[in-house]
């Protein structure tokens, strides 16, 4: 293994002569101490004198190379093995790196060109993996939107430009008309990654066709689903991609002003995207007459203040306007009357993250990835009772079984798989028998779940499905804005029934009543929050009704409820 590494190193190094050490500074790795590792690495590298730096590569007979750079990177996704340190150009990934390991990285890898084996990832069967791309967790993935994460410095515009960044914006602005831009996105078949899967090109077309003096485009980074952190990682790890995407969107719909709405709980994302915006202005990718095309575009960040419902587009608009974030009835849709009553497009940040590569590579390339009705890839935050939790990106059409058992490495204990919760509070729980359905917006809806924003929580037999349904209803009750009765009161009554069921005080017809109420709330709520709120209940009733019935008899098969007995 290390033999091969050395060969590769010589080859790549002879091209640009720099060893790059990237320390993951995603939220997960930071909380495990990655910034301390970064500081120590920087000190150690600074202390290396010229001779030692040359010594580093003398094993390979290459004396020209004497530069070592230490940078931070965005989230690699392999969060539970963090802090992560990547050494390029070899592509080595060191896992669970603590400050005391820095010495071994410097002494072994930098000075002697050897692998620090203790820091390499080992799978459950003991196999050692030195390179990031060889680790099984990455093998089943197709990282396009997240492609730069872990490999570029999110605080450097140069770093983004080296990957071809802002080429797509230049192409759109100088070679294409707005109509051609949204036409390309429409042909690509890109569908909204925020949950509902509406065709992005159509959304842009509707806004483009409106006649107005001022139009707006908004990037929705109000990622509120519990168990989901894709948008956070993308915005923190590759903010320029989002900026390039939203600027192209602005051009396509002829908007001159854009906003990125970031959730209150994501201070690092706000910081990174603000820095990126300043740099983009300085480089002429924002502001007046971008690329000499005559197109002007201004962009600013708006911070949320802690309200799940603000992920709903009309509520988000109210929030930017400086009001409480309560939804409005649609129609009119934001494409006709959005921010300040003007035509507005709102796209999820992952959706916008797909846009630059569609413009760069064309719609045919894009639609060849994934499945027919759901082209492209989807990012997921996979968590819960699996061996490898973290952030992944897979082609549409992959099965849930492949995600759980190949990418995530299967269950983390001897306990059996029970259900996978997909789509957060708007989604559902799928049992074992549906794990072979190809992933797609429509296929999941048929079995009572949805792709949603991308939270995947895997549960083993120790999880109680009634308790999980109660968990989500509790969440919805907290976050319901209170504007419409079905959502405000209906979900409260549903929660009360679930509380009775889990506390051993259920009435005989409670399950039927719960089901009936679920349908009422679904059909009569004002916005997406209420309309999808019953999904966790309906899907668990559909696949795990026996568990509800056991609770009626005062039994919890998973042994979670009735803890007072």
């Amino acid at each position, binding site marked *: 293994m290390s033999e091969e590494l050395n060969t590769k190193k010589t080859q790549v190094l002879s091209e640009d002569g720099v060893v790059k050490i990237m320390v993951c500074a995603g939220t997960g790795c930071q*909380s495990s101490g990655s910034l301390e590792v970064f500081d120590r690495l920087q000190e150690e590298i600074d202390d290396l004198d010229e001779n030692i730096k040359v010594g580093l590569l003398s094993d390979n007979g290459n004396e020209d190379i004497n530069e070592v750079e230490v940078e931070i990177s965005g989230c690699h996704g392999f969060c539970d093995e963090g802090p992560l340190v990547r050494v390029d150009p070899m592509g080595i990934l060191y896992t669970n790196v603590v400050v005391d390991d820095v010495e071994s990285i410097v002494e072994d890898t930098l000075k002697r060109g050897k692998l620090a084996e203790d820091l390499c990832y080992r799978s459950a069967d003991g196999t050692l993996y030195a390179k990031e791309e060889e680790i099984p967790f990455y093998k089943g993935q197709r990282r396009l939107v997240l492609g730069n994460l872990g490999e570029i410095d999110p605080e450097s515009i140069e770093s983004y430009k080296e990957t071809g960044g802002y080429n797509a914006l230049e192409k759109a602005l100088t070679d294409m008309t707005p109509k051609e831009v949204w036409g390309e996105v429409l042909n690509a078949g890109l569908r909204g990654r925020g949950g509902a899967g509406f065709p992005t090109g159509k959304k842009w077309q509707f806004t483009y066709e409106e006649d107005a003096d001022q139009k707006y485009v908004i990037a929705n980074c109000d990622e509120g689903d519990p168990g989901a952190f894709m948008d956070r990682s993308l915005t923190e790890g590759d903010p320029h991609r989002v900026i390039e995407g939203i600027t192209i969107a602005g051009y396509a719909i002829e908007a001159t002003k854009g906003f990125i709405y970031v959730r209150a709980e994501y201070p690092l994302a706000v910081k990174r995207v603000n820095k990126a915006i300043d740099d983009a202005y300085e480089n002429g990718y924002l502001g007046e007459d971008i690329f000499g095309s005559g197109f002007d575009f201004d962009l600013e960040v708006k911070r949320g203040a802690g309200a799940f419902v603000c992920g709903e587009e009309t509520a988000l608009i109210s929030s930017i306007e400086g009001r409480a974030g309560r939804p409005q009835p649609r129609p009119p849709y934001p494409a006709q009357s959005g921010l300040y009553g003007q035509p507005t497009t709102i796209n999820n940040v992952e959706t916008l993250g797909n846009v630059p590569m569609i413009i760069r590579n064309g719609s045919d390339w894009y639609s060849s990835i994934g499945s027919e009705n759901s082209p492209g890839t989807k990012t997921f*935050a996979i968590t819960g009772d699996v061996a490898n939790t973290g952030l992944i990106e897979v082609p549409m059409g992959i099965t849930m079984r492949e995600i759980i058992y190949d990418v995530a490495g299967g269950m983390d204990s001897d306990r059996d798989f029970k259900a996978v919760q997909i789509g957060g509070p708007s989604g559902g729980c799928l049992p074992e028998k549906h794990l072979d359905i190809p992933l797609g917006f429509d296929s999941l809806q048929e079995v009572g779940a949805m792709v949603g924003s991308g939270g995947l929580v895997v*549960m083993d037999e120790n999880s109680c499905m009634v308790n999980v349904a109660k968990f989500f209803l509790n969440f919805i009750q907290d976050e319901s804005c209170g504007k419409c009765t079905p959502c405000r009161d209906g979900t409260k009554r549903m929660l009360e029934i679930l509380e009775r069921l889990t506390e051993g005080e259920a009435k005989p017809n409670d399950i039927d009543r719960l089901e009936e109420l679920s349908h009422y709330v679904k059909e009569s709520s004002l916005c997406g929050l209420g309309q999808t709120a019953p999904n966790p209940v309906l899907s668990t009733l559909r696949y795990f009704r026996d568990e509800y019935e056991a609770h009626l008899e005062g039994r919890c098969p998973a042994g979670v409820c009735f803890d007072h007995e």
Partner: protein
Amino acid sequence: MPEINEELRKMQNTYEKILEDLPETRESVIPALQLVQKSRGYLPGDGLEFIADYTDTPLANVYSIATFYSQFYLEPQGEHTVKVCQGTACHIKGANEIYEALLGKLGIAPGEVTPDGKFTLTTVRCLGACSLAPVMMVDDKVYGNQTPDEARDVLDEYRD
């Protein structure tokens, strides 16, 4: 009384300074609330009044916004805010045990401040660090893979 007026004027000057970069329009209400809270740790009544005046928005609306969003506090908070994540992953990994342990240790009800003014304990709906579940956050620092004992120890670090 002159001293009170003096106090009031000083406070007004402070608010003016905090908000000086914001346009005096309604869209500034939420950023203004965020800035005042950042500076004072919570949203005092005179702060709300000042914002209403500054943004030309009825005080009732400012109050409505301040109470709608969960980020805002109308009461003084402890020196350190402890948030236990209640996201899905944390929930199935035992976040409740962490929360109960901390409530027990601090001897307060959810949202209350400890008598010594050190801590406020609340829950939060997902910090987006799900791989490290169960997770808690003290001020801006995230602590992952917590057990009840570890979580109690973390608080001790902030005691002195």
